[in-house]
C-alpha cells in the first residue's frame, strides 16, 4: 500500500461519519424542500376545501420531481443591464449559507457533520444570516425597481428581527449555560423539562422572529405579489430561481432546527426520563407501519394501475424503513444504533411540526403592512426581548443566590414579562390609533 492510499484511508476512517452525514444533508435538502412545497400546496388546498395537485402521480406525489425537471430545462433569462457576475452568484450565496449552517446542527445524537463545535449555535445563526447577502445582492444586480425594493425591504426586516430573535435565543442560552448544541440538549435532558416550559415568552418571540427572518407570510413583504411582483426574485428564472427557493426552504429547516434544539428538547422524546412511557420508543415503527397500511388501503382505490403500483411502492418503502427501525430491537448487537435512529426520528418530527406551524400561519393570517411590521419589531418585540432576558436572568439569580424554587422563580418572572408585554401592546394600540387618525385627517380623499 502506498503512503497516499494509507493517508486517504486514515482520513476516511477518522471522518467517515462527517462525510456520510454531509453528503446525506446536501442530497436530502433539495428533495425535502421539494416535498415541503408539495405539503404546503396540499395543506393550502385542504384549508381552502379543494384537492391541490392531483395529476402527477397518485395524489400528486410526483409533482416535486416534475417541478424540478421543469425548472432545470426552463429558459434562463438574464436582464440586459443586470450586473452579470453578482447576478450569477447571488443565489449561490443564499443556498450555500443555509447548507453550511446545517453543518453545525445535530439532527439526532449521532447524525451530525461537525463534532460539537464550541460555539455551535452561534455558528448556525451567524452563517445562516449570511444568506441575506444573496437576497440583497440579487435584488441589486437585477437592475429592476421591484427587485431593489424587495431587497431593501428584506434588509430592513433582517436588521429589525434578527436583534429580537437573537435576544429571544439568549433566554434559552442563559438556562442552558453553553453554546454547544449537544450540551444544550443534554441540559434539557438532565432538567427533565424542555426550555419552552421554562421560557415560553422567549419561544414565542423566537417563533415570530424566525417567521420574519425566513420571509414567510404574514411577514413576506420582500416578495409581496400584490405590491412587488416577486420582490428580489422578480428577474430570476429557471435554475437560479430554484436555488433561491431551495435556500429559502433550507433556511426554514435551519430555523426550525434551532428552535427545536433550544426550546423543544432537541432529539429527546416526550418525557424522556419517565420509565413507564418508554413504549414511546416504538413510535417511529408504529407511525411508519400505520403510514404503510394507509397507503395500501389507498392503493386499491386508485383509478389507474400505474398509480396503485406507485402507492404499493410507497407502502413497501414505509415498511422497509420501519423494519430498519425495528432491527436493533430484534438483533441485539445493533442495539447501539437505537438512540441515534430514535433521536433522528423525534428531531425531524419536531422540525416538521414547527414548519407545519409556519404553513398554518401562512394560510391563516393576512399580510402585514410594512410600517406595522416595523412597529411590531422595534416597539414591541425588541423591548420585550430585552425585558425577557432580564427576567430570565433574575429568575436564575433568585434560584442561585436566594434558594428559590426554580419553577416558582420562573413563573413569577414570566408573569412579570407578560405584564410588560401587555403594557407595550396597550401603548402601541394607542399610538396606532393616533397615527391612523392623523393619516385620515391628512388624507384629502377621505372626507
Amino acid at each position, binding site marked *: 500500500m502506498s503512503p497516499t492510499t494509507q493517508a486517504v484511508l486514515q482520513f476516511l476512517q477518522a471522518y467517515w461519519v462527517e462525510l456520510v452525514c454531509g453528503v446525506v444533508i446536501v442530497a436530502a435538502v433539495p428533495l425535502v424542500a421539494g416535498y415541503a412545497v408539495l405539503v404546503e400546496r396540499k395543506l393550502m388546498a385542504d384549508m381552502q376545501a379543494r384537492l391541490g395537485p392531483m395529476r402527477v402521480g397518485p395524489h400528486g406525489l410526483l409533482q416535486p420531481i416534475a417541478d424540478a425537471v421543469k425548472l432545470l430545462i426552463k429558459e434562463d433569462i438574464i436582464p440586459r443591464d443586470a*450586473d452579470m457576475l*453578482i447576478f450569477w452568484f447571488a443565489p449561490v450565496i443564499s443556498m450555500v449559507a443555509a447548507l453550511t449552517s446545517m453543518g453545525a446542527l445535530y439532527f439526532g445524537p449521532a447524525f451530525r457533520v461537525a463534532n460539537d*463545535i*464550541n*460555539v455551535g449555535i*452561534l*455558528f448556525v*445563526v*451567524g*452563517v445562516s*444570516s*449570511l444568506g*441575506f*447577502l444573496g437576497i*440583497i*445582492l440579487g435584488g*441589486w*444586480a437585477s437592475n429592476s425597481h421591484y427587485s*431593489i425594493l424587495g*431587497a*431593501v425591504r428584506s*434588509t*430592513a426586516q*433582517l*436588521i429589525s428581527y*434578527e436583534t429580537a430573535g437573537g435576544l429571544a435565543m439568549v433566554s434559552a442560552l442563559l438556562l442552558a449555560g453553553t*453554546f454547544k448544541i449537544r450540551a444544550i440538549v443534554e441540559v434539557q435532558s438532565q432538567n427533565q423539562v424542555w426550555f419552552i416550559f421554562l421560557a415560553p415568552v422567549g419561544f414565542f418571540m423566537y417563533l415570530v422572529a424566525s417567521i420574519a427572518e425566513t420571509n414567510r407570510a404574514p411577514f413576506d413583504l420582500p416578495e409581496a405579489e400584490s405590491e412587488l411582483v416577486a420582490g428580489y426574485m422578480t428577474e430570476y428564472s429557471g435554475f437560479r430561481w430554484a436555488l433561491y427557493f431551495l435556500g429559502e426552504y433550507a433556511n426554514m429547516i435551519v430555523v426550525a432546527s434551532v428552535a427545536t434544539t433550544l426550546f423543544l428538547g432537541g432529539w429527546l422524546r416526550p418525557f424522556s426520563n419517565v420509565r413507564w412511557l418508554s413504549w414511546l420508543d416504538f413510535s417511529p415503527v408504529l407511525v411508519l407501519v400505520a403510514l404503510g397500511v394507509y397507503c395500501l388501503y389507498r392503493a386499491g382505490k386508485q383509478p389507474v394501475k400505474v398509480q396503485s403500483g406507485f402507492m404499493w411502492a410507497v407502502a413497501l418503502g414505509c415498511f422497509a424503513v420501519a423494519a430498519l427501525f425495528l432491527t436493533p430491537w430484534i438483533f441485539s448487537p445493533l442495539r447501539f444504533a437505537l438512540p441515534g435512529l430514535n433521536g433522528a426520528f423525534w428531531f425531524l418530527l419536531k422540525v416538521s411540526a414547527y414548519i407545519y406551524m409556519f404553513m398554518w400561519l401562512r394560510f391563516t393570517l393576512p399580510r402585514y403592512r410594512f410600517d406595522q411590521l416595523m412597529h411590531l419589531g422595534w416597539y414591541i418585540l425588541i423591548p420585550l426581548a430585552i425585558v425577557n432576558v432580564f427576567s430570565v436572568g433574575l429568575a436564575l439569580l433568585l434560584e442561585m443566590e436566594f434558594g428559590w424554587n426554580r419553577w416558582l422563580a420562573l413563573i413569577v418572572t414570566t408573569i412579570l414579562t407578560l405584564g410588560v408585554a401587555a403594557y407595550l401592546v396597550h401603548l402601541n394600540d394607542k399610538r396606532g390609533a393616533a397615527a391612523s387618525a392623523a393619516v385620515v385627517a391628512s388624507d384629502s380623499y377621505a372626507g
Partner: protein
Amino acid sequence: MLDSIVFYFFAGIAVLSAALMVTRRNVMHSAVFLVTTLLSIAGIFLQLRAEFLFVTQIIVYVGGIMVLFIFVIMLVRLDVPLHQMRFRFQRLVALLVAFALGVEVLVILLLARKLPGAGLFVQSTAPVSKLPPNSEELSRTLFSNYLLPFEIASVLLLVAMVGAVVMAKGRKRADES
C-alpha cells in the same frame, strides 16, 4: 503544515480582495470584496483556534455592519458625488499613508525575525483538546479582569446610540415644520 496552508490561503484571499475592494469603481463590487476580506479574516481567526472571535467576526461584521453598508449604498444615489469637486490632495495623502504603513510593516517584519519560531511556515498551534474552551475563557476574562474597560466601552456605545437617535429625531422635526 496544514496550519501554514490554511493561513496562506485565507491571508492571500484577504489581501487580494482588499486590493480589489480599493480599486473597483463600482461601489457594490467594493462592498462584495470587503465581505470576502472580512470572511477570510474570520478564517484566520479559526486557524488560530479562536472560534468565538471567528463567529463574532461573521455575525457582527458580515451579518451586521456589511448589511448596513449595502443598505446605505442602495438608498443613496451614488452618481451625485461623482460630479462634485473631489478632495484635491487625496492622492498625495493616500501615498503618504501607504508609505508610512509600508515602513511600519517592514519594521515589524524585521523585528519579528528575531523572535523564536519565526519563519515562512506558521507554527502549528496546540491541539484544541489542550486549550481551555474559548467562549468560557473569554467571558471569564472579560467579566473579571477587564470588567471596567468592558463597561466603559459599553457606555460609550450606548452614548453613540442615543446620540444617533437624537440626531435622527431632530432632523425629522425640522422636516415637519
